[in-house]
């Protein structure tokens, strides 16, 4: 019997993870902003033998966040695995032209995640067990001119999770920071990404499951992003400025 909470349950990466977890006895609590799409995900997981309940959340209405966890813990009793997956890839040019858009995107990708994690950590702590996986990104490893708004939000998430991991370790709760490279999901649709760099959500999901099992702290997925990002971080500023990465 495992109890799984997914926030951003309509994400392609989240669905791929959920399908790996789904079997007779798994109970899901699925949170997202669109009721019909959430119900499609619920039905898919139910047909795979799991039970699932949905909860519609308006991510801008932060005062409604506590109710997510009240209902989740009322439904599941406890949370063995929590996956935080929602996020958006904003248009960097738009963010440069309009500070309101920039802050709205930052609030979604960093602010809402930190708020949700803060509430979740307090609820999970007394359990003294369980795991939290958070979808950050390789983009958070260094701000690049083409997407530094998104990158800075993911950097905030990554750093927050570093601290949360050390904090919750004392309570026996594991925190996994997931840093995918490019994944073939609606988020990357239309982007000119070379085929060999584009991972399938299923591949990323398998890596996430394995990392949770081995209690890894930070996961680069697919693995080759770890050396790629190491190189990108090593490029001296003087050179980096001139590259249009």
């Amino acid at each position, binding site marked *: 019997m495992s109890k799984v909470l997914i926030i951003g349950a309509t994400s392609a990466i989240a669905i791929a993870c959920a399908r790996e977890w789904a079997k007779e006895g798994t109970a899901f609590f699925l949170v997202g902003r669109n009721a019909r799409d959430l119900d499609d995900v619920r039905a898919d997981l139910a047909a*795979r033998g799991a039970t699932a309940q949905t909860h519609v959340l308006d991510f801008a209405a932060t005062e409604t966040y506590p109710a997510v966890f009240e209902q989740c813990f009322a439904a599941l009793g406890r949370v063995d695995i929590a996956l935080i997956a929602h996020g958006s890839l904003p248009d960097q040019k738009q963010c440069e032209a309009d500070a309101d858009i920039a802050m709205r995107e930052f609030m979604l990708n960093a602010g809402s995640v930190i708020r949700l994690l803060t509430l979740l950590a307090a609820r999970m702590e007394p359990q003294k067990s369980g795991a939290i996986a958070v979808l950050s990104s390789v983009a958070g490893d260094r701000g690049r001119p083409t997407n530094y708004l998104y990158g800075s939000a993911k950097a905030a998430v990554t750093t927050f999770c570093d601290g949360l991991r050390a904090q919750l370790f004392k309570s026996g709760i594991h925190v996994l920071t997931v840093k995918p490279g490019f994944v073939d999901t609606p988020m990357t649709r239309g982007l000119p990404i070379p085929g060999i760099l584009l991972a399938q959500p299923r591949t990323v999901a398998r890596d996430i499951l394995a990392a949770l099992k081995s209690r890894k702290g930070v996961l680069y997925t697919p693995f080759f992003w770890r050396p790629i990002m190491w190189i990108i971080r090593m490029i001296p500023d003087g050179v980096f400025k001139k590259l249009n990465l």
Partner: protein
Amino acid sequence: MSDETLTSWGAYPHFPQSGHMCTWRSRLAENFADVVARHGTTLPFGKGRSYGDSCLAASDHVLSLRRLDRLISADWQTGTIVAEAGMTLADVLKVAIPRGWFLPVTPGTKFVTLGGAVANDVHGKNHHVRGTFGRHVRTFGLLRSDRGQVVCSANDDADLYAATIGGLGLTGIIEWVELQLIPIRSSQLTVTTVRFNTLDDFFALSDELDGKNEYTVAWIDGFARGASKGRGVFTAANHADTGDLSVAAGKNLAVPFHLPVLAAGGALPRLFNSLYFHKHAAHRRVDPTGYEPFFYPLDGIGHWNRLYGRHGFQQFQCVIPHKTAQPALQHILETTARSGGGSCLSVLKRCGDLASPGLMSFPMPGISLAMDFPQTNTLDKVVFPQLDSIVREAGGRLYPAKDAHMTAEDFRRFYPAWSRVEATRDPALCSRFWKRVTA
């Protein structure tokens, strides 16, 4: 702007498609209307495992449905599933096998979608006992630009049901499919393998083994000449009674870019064919085999179509009625051998007499032959016209799912019901194939 660029499996004719992605059923009607408003007409696209131009839109703008891959409901007591049309057979197997169910009919690759399997009314190695895929589809939901959502079955909207099975994606967008699975006790098969030396031996083996086996198929050496002409390997199988219900691990190899080792035809494929023949023992063998190597030997290598290089390849697949099959197949094999090219991969299979509910289903009682050729000019100009006339005279027909060359005249002779499909066609849907054969 489109979401992805797509091609057919054979990559010939080469018309890259702009794919417009649909991710949620709740948005399908909107996505459909959007593409049509901007590009006039479109065509549903599954996984592009069709070889020629039947999966290419006349407008070169397709509606990509691979993300509609969810189960809607499943009854594991009766083995009935309802799933979105973009779910692949590979994904169906993953959930069905551990629960003791299997696909009622499967083509030679599992990377096809339910929608594509219905639209081409695909057949498998068990055609002689189960007929085509469409026979196992109870109902499906169709989205039409003129009527909205329609639920079709043999009883409801029966004309549309019949026109859509084998309807080449022209009668509407299949949103979901209700499929009846078959029970299995093990995911293993008991496979009988026999080498044969002549086409006559193939017919004798087919007579002997088809009745005793759920699945039969034969590979034939497309390069063999003289004394070895007509040699091949016959395989026949049944689901095993004992064993486990394990799902095979996914593919591990892939051809990363165009690597045209088969493009030139000639020496290498000749060698492969010969090695394959000699790999099998001369005497009859019975072995337990996993379902993966038996049904999907080519799926183990991702993108193997790239071995034919940039110019792509064509498959020629025909079915010839029993009474003319022997001489016609002999004639076809001789003609291809004489042309110097030879087929890199040739497969023979007996089709049974179970009728499909579809109007334009390919199989007919007789023998089907499929052959793969690297794309060359002589193929279209010299070889295929000769093969076509053999098929025509023998009363057979060609398979649209594999076709890039059939003439409009031949098509209308092979599929006289085409005009009924044309009458029910969704005005917002049209393929390059359809334009070519009905123009």
